[in-house]
């Protein structure tokens, strides 16, 4: 499933929207989520999951190819924690 498939689903299932409008709104959903995460704020989508930002301290690492010690810099990473509902749902038997 791609963004284009989601646009098609929104167009077919939600009445009264043009293809263009369906496309704009799906784009806007993900753009808005990106903006929020960029600003360092987490997102909670009930029934789906939480997008959480974690600040990682710098740590020592190694270049696996050369064996050289390197410093892995401090960074902010995004993780997804699926909701209980999503976890249970994907384990349900297919109807």
């Amino acid at each position, binding site marked *: *499933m*791609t*963004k284009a498939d*989601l646009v098609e*689903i*929104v167009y077919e*299932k*939600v009445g*009264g929207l043009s293809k263009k*409008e369906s496309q*704009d*709104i*799906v784009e*806007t*959903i*993900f753009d*808005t*989520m*990106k903006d*929020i*995460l*960029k600003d*360092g*704020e*987490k*997102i*909670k*989508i*009930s*029934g*789906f*999951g939480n*997008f959480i*930002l974690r600040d990682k301290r710098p740590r020592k690492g190694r270049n696996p190819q050369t064996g050289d010690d390197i410093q892995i810099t401090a*960074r*902010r*990473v*995004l*993780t*997804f924690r*699926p909701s209980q509902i*999503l*976890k249970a*749902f*994907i*384990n*349900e038997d*297919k109807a």
Partner: protein
Amino acid sequence: MTKSDLVQTLSEKISTLTKKECEVIVDTVFQNMRSALHRGEKIEIRGFGSFTVRVRRAKEGRNPKTGEKVSIPEKRIPFFKVGKELRELVNR
């Protein structure tokens, strides 16, 4: 930000849609993403990331209280891999 904050923001950004319509659309999007994962389908949102389903094999476990063996059945887990663009955006 919660789902209702997202709905609110959308209805402000897209003036032709009511809040109720935005809510229906947001619910439709996440419901159908859930269904895709239920079917075992991969979801790829370019610039954002991809969602896949990983399978945890069935394994033997133990009840930590009684020490009894229990069998843990195979389980499917949703997994998100952040896209390059978003990974770089959040780390700025």
